[in-house]
């Protein structure tokens, strides 16, 4: 914790103005002024540090993400990521995958719009969230109502829905997983799995 506070204080002190004053005080004159001219502000100055975990393998290395903007206003944007030196497992190190995580966050192939590909079509078209979600819910209900098995041949309540399946992701959080579990199980879906099976 102390390390972090000191890092923040340090960042505050690294603004170019402070540097000029300090160098000027040593009396180095014009050469130094030119040098100072070429300095750019430390890129992490004024950023927010957020603790996170590498999303790849389950060593679960601690990472610190530096971002600009305000997450409560929808303007936060990550600009840098590094290993968390306080983390007991990775102690600040990252592997060739973890070290490149910024390029994952900002990958050109990140999805940004809901889309649908209609039967037989050769392209995705953009749709609104409402249209997508309503369309999916409709599909689910129609399939469930048509194929849900309430009782088996012996008359025992079995309440299973076998004709729609759900693959969950083992890179989501526990909390996403739990909410997903509740929703999926409440419908009676039995073809329910995640990467642990593979």
């Amino acid at each position, binding site marked *: 914790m102390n390390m972090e506070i000191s890092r923040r204080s340090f960042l505050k002190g690294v603004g170019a103005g402070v540097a000029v004053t300090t160098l000027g005080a040593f009396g180095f004159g014009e050469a130094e002024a030119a040098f100072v001219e070429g300095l750019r502000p430390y890129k992490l100055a004024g950023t927010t540090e957020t603790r996170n975990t590498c*999303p790849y393998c389950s060593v679960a290395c601690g990472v610190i993400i530096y971002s600009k903007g305000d997450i409560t206003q929808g303007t936060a944007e990550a600009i840098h990521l590094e290993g968390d030196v306080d983390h007991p*497992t990775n102690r600040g190190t990252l592997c060739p995958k973890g070290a490149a995580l910024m390029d994952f966050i900002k990958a050109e192939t990140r999805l940004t719009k809901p889309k649908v590909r209609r039967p037989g079509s050769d392209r995705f078209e953009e749709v609104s969230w409402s249209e997508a979600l309503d369309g999916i819910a409709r599909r689910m209900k129609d399939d469930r109502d048509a194929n849900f098995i309430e009782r088996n041949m012996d008359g025992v309540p079995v309440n299973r829905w076998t004709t729609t399946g759900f693959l969950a992701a083992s890179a989501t959080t526990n909390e996403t997983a739990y909410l997903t579990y509740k929703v999926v199980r409440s419908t009676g879906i039995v073809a329910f799995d995640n990467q642990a099976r593979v």
Partner: protein
Amino acid sequence: MTNSWTDIRNTDLVVIMGGNAAEAHPCGFKWVTEAKANRGAKLIVIDPRYTRSASVSDYYAPIRQGTDIAFLLGVINYCIENDKVQWDYVRAFTNAAYLIKDGFAYQDGLFTGYDAEKRDYDRTTWDYQIGDDGYVVTDETLRNPRCVWNLLKEHASVYTPEMVERICGTPKDKFLRVAEMISECSTPTKTMTSMYALGWTQHSKGSQNIRTMAMLQLILGNIGVRGGGMNALRGHSNIQGLTDIGLMSNLIPGYLNIPTEKEVDYATYISSRGFKPLRPNQVSYWQNYPKFFISFQKAMWGSAATPQNDFAYHYLPKLDLAAYDVLRAFEMMDQGQMFGYFCQGFNPLLSFPDRGKITRALSKLDYLVIMDPLETETARFWENHGEFNDVDTASIQTEVYQLPTSCFAEDEGALVNSGRWLQWHWPAQNPPGDARQDTWIMAQLYQRLKKLYQEEGGKFADPILNLHWPYADPEDPKADEMAREMNGYAVTDLRDPNDPTKVLVEAGKQVPGFAALRDDGSTACGNWIYSGSFTDAGNNMARRDNNDPDDTGAYLNWAFSWPANRRILYNRASADLDGKAWDPSRKLIEWDGTKWAGYDVPDIPPTSNPRDVGPFIMNPEGQSRLFSRGMMRDGPFPAHYEPFEAPIANVVAPAIRGNPVARVFESDREHFGDAEEFPYAATSYRLTEHFHYWTKHVWVNAVLQPEFFVEISEELAAEKGIEKGGWCRVWNKRGSVHAKAVVTKRIQPLVCDGKPVHIVGIPLHWGFTGAAKNGMGPNSLTPFVGDANIETPEFKAFLVNIERSDGPATA
């Protein structure tokens, strides 16, 4: 993992077999390096390839993929023959002395009770002899020929060093050197750790691969101790969490089970879950099953789960099969029995076996829903990409929804690492564009479905309409609300059973741990094993104290480790029968005359007398199992079975193909190949620079490893006229891929049963989306068959043919 990444520093010997930690888990591998540098630990690597883990090992032994059980039973045989057994541990903490029913036997590769028609066993004889007192009959002298130890001794005796060489291709002298190094860990003061991953799981007998090593670790006394254990490295950042929370066909969170349709009501369901102790004084902690189950039902259905309706027992689906696993799901699709499918951060077109079948199956769906932060091949399975996805787009009638989700940098919540640590993280930025969190998407789908059922009615809507949804914003539940619900809370005041005037936990408050849960509906708990993670004291998963007294590697105040913040499972076994540490320099917990205490949270009721209560509290035996009764479908002991596609016949049981109880769908059988037509033993693997199919979207990693290749020996390259860096074609009955050839010394031909066996290595990171070059992968070639117990596909051992080629037409 039974232990943790940071505990590996305490070991004397690391065995990496069925994994490749240096490349697939680089920052965890640092603890192997620490153990080597600071304790003088040794590293053994046993692998078909001379991996980067092998390159820093003290000893490397090659092995043919799919023969690990023969190798490990060979080591067990060596330890028994040479009296390298931690006898005090084995006698006190395993079922070595238990007597087995008279009908049980093993012959010609089969155990008693095999039904070839059903590909299944009648397992009734695979069990203990029970005495008149209701407890298992034992022979502590280990003289009775029916005791587990003598049956094991006989079972393992066939796996001599010569037999290991014949099956595995591991030269006898190398095998013996490995066996000798491992056997040295049978002393109480030397410990070995097993680090494994998908190199063991992705086989038709993957569960038994792991079990064989677990048995070896018990014989050496290495379970429950610092620097020991069975350590599954695990592939994804939260694969442990998703398993804990039971997102699998047959699971309820906390390793409870979805009922089968034979369990016609709650009374029947719970009657087979009594977990009556099999030995005197044992804890048999699963006796608390009803408390965990009913608390889960209360978390799911709140006030709709009442004693009158068996706590909504019939809101749960009832299975008619062991599980609707992923292979079955795609078989059903292909057979026209499944119409809708969701992929939440999953890319089955590249990650499930027999890609041709996967494409065919997806094409028969009515609707497919993709939720992902990235483009995936599955989302575009209908799009023609020439050689890389040769489909007839217009004929595919599947409607595909692609929903953009947030990634880790935009999410809040906990991920569970391989060592069972639940570590909380926070969002650093807002999702790009219109991407949304998965929690929002799931809530939106739920609210819409619920509304449709409210408005239109429909089939059995009760579990949907009554789903407990107590969230401040029902349209967008928050991570901490889920975390609190998983921890559990009191529904009504919890009173002290001994003094009803005393309220232990007030209604609405978080429970302090799973010991507070009850089976009368007065508690709700989404996942009992996470109880204690988010108490009234706050979010324990967010703890950041990296203090580690005496450098044990426990880090008790860093995050939260399930269960009950315990860092090493079965840690009572770190001490002898009187409760003193086997190795005083590696003390974990000890008995001080009145209680257990030490560096970890005791894995036993803290006041249990050490001579009365066994360490394996989840087993009704209180002891661990060298003989696993009828709990695994393919045998109470592991036995060597070849992969379904193997370059040689099964030497110990020539009539048996593959695992005799692994499920094979009829339509897939004809796509299996034989060694005459496909003589080369292929295997799949990952690279240091890539993570599955994600990092081909990452510019840096796409540059580091830009294109698909296969790896072959210099001998095979010479035989086939394939040049270094030249093109080759690899094929079998399921598919054909073109690849550049990496001709290497890292793979050497083996001699198995007198026959040379060449190995073809096929890494798995390329597709037709992202920043890397388009490429193919192993799943175009792998067979559609899984492990006999849990259906993990056999990705690690299959047959191919290979020839020099001019490359793909569109390369």
